[in-house]
C-alpha cells in the first residue's frame, strides 16, 4: 500500500477519524475481551514467592509479644517481617503520615496488618501466618462521637503533628471545617416553616472487582520494580521511598491492569509489603488479596450522621440552612481532611441559600479507616439535603421538583464559601430534563419497560423468588439532584504531565502519548488517543504504558483525569504542533505565503490552513525528525478554606447530575425493586459520548447500591461482620434497572474543550432519588441508608 505524497491529492481538511466527540472504542478492549489484558493479579515471575498479611483480630489492643519462631520454621517460608524489621520510616499516609506499615505495638482497627510472610505457595504463607503467636492486651474502644470525645477517652494518636493538630478542638477529631456565611439565626426569623431532620449514611465499600495485588521484583542496583494497580503512581512512590529507605529513582513503578478503583486504591495497601518482602528475600514477591482481605485492605466511604435545619417562606424560598455533619474516619486519617472540606463546602447542595451555618468534622475511632470513595463527602450531604428538600416541598404542599427549581443555583450564584460559580450550573434544567423523560409503564411486569422491551414476573420485587404476582406492590417516584467539585481543591497543586512524541514510522506519522495516568477502567486511554488524533491530525496513536519514568499525572479520582491529564496531553500536543509548524516553515515556507500568514492546523495527516488549503504532508514536514516534548499542565489555582469562617475560592469546577427513580415496593415483605433510574447530567463537552453514558450508568448503580443494599456492618466491638460478597451485597444485573441518560453539554470556558468532570456526580443524587421514591411508595420517613426490608415492614 503506497503512501500518498502529493498534497493536492487529498480531501482538503479531512478530519482525522477517532477524534474528539466520537464514540471511539477502547484501545484496550480487544485485550480485555480475550483475557490477555494483564491485571495486577495476573503478574507472574519465574521463581516468585507469595506474600501474605497477618491481620489483627481485635479493633484496639496493645501487642505484648509476637512469636514468629514456629511459623518461620515452616518449610517453604522465606521471610516474616514485623514492625521491628522495618528498615526505615515506619508510617505512611495520604495527608497525615499516621498509618503504620505494620502495627507499631498497638492495633487500632480490626484487620490492621501485624506481620507479613513470604512463602513458595499462597497456602504455605497462609498456614504459616496462622502459626504466628501474638499476645494482646485489649484496650477500650472509641466507636463514635460520644466515646471519641468523652472525658478520659483513649487518644488514638497522642503525638499528632499534622497541620490541623493545633486547630481541632479534640485530638480525636481528624479535621473540622466550619462555614459561616450571612446570619442564619437572623434569616431564620423570615422563615414561615422550619424543618429539621437527622440522617445517617452507612459505611459503603468501593468493592472494585480486581483485588489489591501486585508484583515486586528486586533489582540488581538494590532498588525494586513494582507492577501495581493503583490510582496514582507518584503518590505511592512518594510514600514508598521513605518506608523502603530508597531514593525514588531506585523504585520503578509500572501500572498493571486495574480492575476498578472508585477511590479504594488511593491509599497504599500491599505496595510497601510486597517491596519489603522482595528486598528482604531477594526474590520477586507477588501479593494478591482475596475478597475477605480486600475488605480490610482498603479504606471505605465514611459513614456519617447528619443534622440539618432549613427554613422556608410560604412562597417557597429557602431562608437559611444550618447543618452539622459527623464523619467516622476510623483508625487513620487517610483522606478524611479533604472529605471534611468537601462535605462542608458542598453541604448546602445546588441551591441558593445566603445564610448558612455549617460544620463538618471527621473523627478518629477504632472503626475501619475511611477515605476516598466516588462522591467523596458530597454523597453523604446529598442524601440529607435532598431528604430535606422533599420535606420542605411537602410542608409547602408544592411539587418537589418545582420547589427545587425555585431554589436552584445557577451561573453566578455565590457558594457558602464566598466563591462565585463562574460556569454554567444548569440545575433547574437538569431537573426539567429528567422529569420530562417518559415514565416506565404501570405494572411493567405485564406491559414491558419504557423502551418497549418485554418483561415479566421476574421484574417484580422479589424477582426470581416469585414472592408476589403484583399484589401488595406499590409504586413511588422520587427526584434528587446534587453538586460535586471536580479536581483537587483547597489550594492543592493539582498538576499533570504528558509526554507526546511525533515521528514517522513506516511512512506514516505516528504519535505516542506517555503519561503516568492510572487507567482504572474510566477510559482515559481512549480519550488521550482522541485528543492526540484531533490535535495532531494523525490516525495512529500509541498509548505508552503508565509508569514513573514520566512526571506525575496526579490521581485518577475527583473526576479530574480527563480535565487535568487530558489538559496536559492537549497542551503537549499543541507544543508539538508548534514545533511541526516551525519545521514546516523552515522546509517549505518559501513555497507558499500561507506558511507565514495563515492560521495552520494539522488534519488528516496534512498541514492545512484554517481555510482548508493543504500546504504539506505531515510525513514530509517531520521526515527524519522526532519531536518529543514533556510538559506539565495546571488548572487555575484554588485556595484553602479559612479554618474559622470557611471562606475561600476552594474549588476548580462543579459537576451536576439529577435523577428520577421509579421503584416498586412489596410492602408486606419490605422488598424493593428499582424499576427505572433516569439520569440527566451536564458534561460540558462529551469527548466520548459512549464512555460518558457508561460512566453515568456505573455511578448511578453505585448510588443505587448505597440506597438499598450496600453496607459494611461494624459491630459494637468495632469488628467487621460481612467481609465477603456473600454478605456485602452489590447490585447485580437483576437489581439494576434500565438507566436512561440525558446528556447536556454546556461548555465551561475555563476547562479544556469546555469539558466537565463526570465520574462522580451520578453517584450523589442516585441514592436520595431512590429513597425518595421508596418514601413516596410507602409514606415512611426513612432517615437512613441503606434502606433494609425491616425499615419498610417495621419489624
Amino acid at each position, binding site marked *: 500500500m503506497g503512501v500518498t505524497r502529493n498534497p493536492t491529492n487529498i480531501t482538503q481538511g479531512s478530519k482525522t*477519524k*477517532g477524534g474528539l466527540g466520537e464514540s*471511539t*472504542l*477502547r*484501545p*484496550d*478492549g*480487544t485485550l*480485555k*475481551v*480475550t*483475557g*490477555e489484558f*494483564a*491485571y495486577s*493479579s*495476573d503478574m*507472574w515471575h519465574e521463581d516468585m514467592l507469595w506474600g501474605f498479611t497477618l491481620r489483627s483480630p481485635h479493633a484496639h489492643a496493645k501487642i505484648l509479644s509476637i512469636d514468629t519462631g514456629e511459623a518461620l520454621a515452616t518449610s517453604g517460608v522465606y521471610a516474616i517481617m514485623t514492625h521491628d524489621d522495618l528498615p526505615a520510616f515506619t508510617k505512611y499516609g495520604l495527608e497525615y503520615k499516621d498509618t503504620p506499615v505494620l502495627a507499631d505495638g498497638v492495633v487500632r482497627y480490626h484487620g490492621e496488618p501485624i506481620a507479613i510472610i513470604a512463602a513458595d*505457595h499462597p*497456602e504455605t504463607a497462609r498456614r504459616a501466618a496462622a502459626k504466628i503467636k501474638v499476645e494482646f492486651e485489649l484496650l477500650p474502644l472509641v466507636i463514635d462521637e460520644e466515646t471519641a470525645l468523652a472525658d478520659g477517652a483513649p487518644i488514638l494518636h497522642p503525638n499528632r503533628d499534622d497541620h490541623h493538630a493545633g486547630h481541632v478542638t479534640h485530638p480525636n477529631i481528624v479535621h473540622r471545617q466550619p462555614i459561616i456565611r450571612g446570619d442564619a439565626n437572623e434569616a431564620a426569623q423570615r422563615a414561615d416553616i422550619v424543618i429539621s431532620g437527622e440522617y445517617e449514611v452507612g459505611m459503603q465499600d*468501593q*468493592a*472494585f*472487582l*480486581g*483485588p489489591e495485588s501486585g508484583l515486586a521484583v528486586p533489582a540488581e542496583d538494590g532498588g525494586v520494580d513494582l507492577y501495581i494497580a493503583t490510582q496514582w503512581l507518584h503518590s505511592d512512590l512518594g510514600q514508598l521511598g521513605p518506608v523502603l529507605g530508597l531514593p525514588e529513582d531506585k523504585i520503578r513503578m509500572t501500572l498493571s*491492569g486495574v*480492575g*476498578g*478503583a*472508585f477511590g479504594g486504591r488511593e491509599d497504599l495497601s500491599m505496595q510497601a509489603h510486597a517491596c519489603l518482602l522482595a528486598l528482604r528475600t531477594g526474590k520477586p514477591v507477588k501479593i*494478591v488479596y*482475596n*475478597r475477605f482481605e480486600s475488605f480490610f485492605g482498603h479504606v471505605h466511604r465514611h459513614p456519617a450522621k447528619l443534622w440539618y435545619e432549613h427554613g422556608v417562606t410560604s412562597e417557597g424560598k429557602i431562608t437559611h440552612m444550618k447543618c452539622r455533619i459527623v464523619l467516622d474516619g476510623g483508625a487513620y486519617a487517610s483522606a478524611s481532611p479533604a472529605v471534611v472540606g468537601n462535605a462542608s463546602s458542598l453541604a448546602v447542595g445546588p441551591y441558593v441559600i445566603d445564610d448558612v451555618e455549617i460544620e463538618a468534622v471527621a473523627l478518629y475511632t477504632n472503626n475501619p479507616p475511611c477515605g476516598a470513595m466516588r462522591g467523596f463527602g458530597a454523597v453523604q450531604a446529598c442524601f440529607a439535603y435532598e431528604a430535606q428538600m422533599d420535606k420542605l416541598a411537602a410542608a409547602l404542599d408544592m411539587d418537589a421538583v418545582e420547589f427545587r427549581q425555585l431554589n436552584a443555583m445557577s451561573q453566578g450564584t455565590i457558594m457558602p464559601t464566598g466563591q462565585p460559580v463562574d460556569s454554567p450550573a444548569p440545575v433547574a434544567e437538569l431537573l426539567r430534563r429528567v422529569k420530562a423523560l417518559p415514565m416506565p409503564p404501570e405494572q411493567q411486569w405485564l406491559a414491558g419497560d419504557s423502551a418497549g422491551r*418485554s*418483561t*415479566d414476573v421476574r*421484574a417484580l420485587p422479589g424477582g*426470581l423468588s416469585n414472592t408476589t404476582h403484583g399484589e401488595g406492590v406499590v409504586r413511588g417516584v422520587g427526584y434528587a439532584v446534587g453538586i460535586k467539585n471536580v479536581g483537587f481543591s483547597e489550594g492543592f497543586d493539582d498538576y499533570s504531565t504528558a509526554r507526546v512524541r511525533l515521528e514517522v514510522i513506516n511512512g506514516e506519522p505516528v504519535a505516542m502519548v506517555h503519561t503516568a495516568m492510572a487507567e482504572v*477502567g*474510566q477510559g482515559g486511554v481512549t480519550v488521550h*488517543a482522541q485528543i492526540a488524533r484531533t490535535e495532531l491530525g494523525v*490516525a495512529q*496513536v*500509541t498509548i505508552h504504558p503508565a509508569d514513573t519514568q514520566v512526571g506525575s499525572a496526579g490521581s485518577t479520582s475527583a473526576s479530574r483525569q480527563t480535565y487535568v491529564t487530558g489538559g496536559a496531553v492537549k497542551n503537549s500536543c499543541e507544543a508539538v504542533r508548534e514545533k511541526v509548524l516551525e519545521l514546516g516553515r523552515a522546509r517549505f515556507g518559501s513555497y507558499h505565503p500561507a506558511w507565514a500568514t495563515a492560521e495552520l492546523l494539522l488534519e488528516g495527516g496534512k498541514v492545512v490552513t484554517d481555510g482548508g488549503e493543504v500546504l504539506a504532508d505531515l510525513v514530509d514536514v517531520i521526515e527524519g525528525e522526532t519531536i518529543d516534548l514533556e510538559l506539565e499542565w495546571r488548572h487555575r489555582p484554588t485556595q484553602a478554606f479559612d479554618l474559622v469562617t470557611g471562606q475561600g475560592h476552594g474549588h476548580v469546577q462543579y459537576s451536576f447530575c439529577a435523577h428520577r427513580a421509579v421503584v416498586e415496593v412489596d410492602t408486606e415483605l419490605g422488598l424493593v425493586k428499582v424499576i427505572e433510574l433516569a439520569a440527566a447530567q451536564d458534561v460540558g463537552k462529551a469527548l466520548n459520548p459512549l464512555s460518558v*453514558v*457508561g460512566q453515568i*450508568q*456505573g455511578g448511578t448503580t453505585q448510588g443505587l447500591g448505597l440506597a438499598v443494599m450496600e453496607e459494611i456492618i461494624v459491630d459494637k466491638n468495632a469488628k467487621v461482620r460481612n467481609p*465477603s*460478597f*456473600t454478605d456485602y451485597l*452489590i*447490585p*447485580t*444485573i437483576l437489581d*439494576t434497572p*434500565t*438507566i436512561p441518560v440525558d446528556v447536556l453539554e454546556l461548555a465551561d470556558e475555563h476547562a479544556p474543550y469546555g469539558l466537565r468532570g463526570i465520574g462522580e456526580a451520578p453517584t450523589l443524587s442516585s441514592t436520595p432519588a431512590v429513597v425518595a421514591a421508596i418514601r413516596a411508595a410507602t409514606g415512611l420517613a426513612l432517615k437512613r441508608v441503606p434502606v433494609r426490608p425491616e425499615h419498610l415492614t417495621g419489624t
Partner: protein
Amino acid sequence: MRVTFNVNGRPQEADDVWEGESLLYVLRERMGLPGSKNACEQGECGSCTVRLDGVPVCACLVAAAQVQDRDVVTVEGLADYAKDRAAGRCGTGACGTPLGEAQKWAAKPADGQTGESTESGDLSPIQEAFIDAGAVQCGFCTPGLLVAADELLERNPSPSDQDIREALSGNLCRCTGYEKILDAVRLAAARGESVTAGEGV
C-alpha cells in the same frame, strides 16, 4: 498430584498440584491462562466462569482434581469455541449446538489502536459485541460475563431482557451499571439473527 485435562481443546498437564487447589488457581498460576479472573474466589461474582464439559461453572469452586480428563473452555478459547460451534465442529467434545442451529457469525475484531472493528482477526460474536456496545470498562468482570453470555446465546439465540438478566445474575460488574452489558448481549443476538435471516435459514 498430577492433573491432566483439556483446556480450550488442547491437552494440559499440571504437576505438584495441592489437593486444595482450585481449577482457577491451576489455570491462572500453573497453566499461564490468567484470563479467568479472581475477584472473590467464593463463587459469588462469576468473574472466573468457565465451561466444564459445556456447563458454566465458577472455576474458583471447582477442585482441580475434579477436572481430571474433562474439557474446560476459558475466555482465551472462546473465539475458537464459537468458531467451531458455528462450523458445526466441536473442539472440546462439549458443544451442544447442532450445525443447523449454529449461529453464523461474521466476527470482526477490534483494532488495537482505535478499538474499532477490523476485518482481519478473530473474536467471537459476543466478544465483539462487548467492545462495540461499550460494555467493557475496567474489564475485570468481562471474561466471566463473556463465557456466561456466550452460553446463554448458545441455548437461547433470542433471549428476552429478563432472560439475559436471569442468565447473568451470577456475574457481578462494579463499573458499568449493566446497561451496556445488556446492550452487548442484545447486539450479539440481533447480529446472529440477521446473519441467519440473511442466509434464509
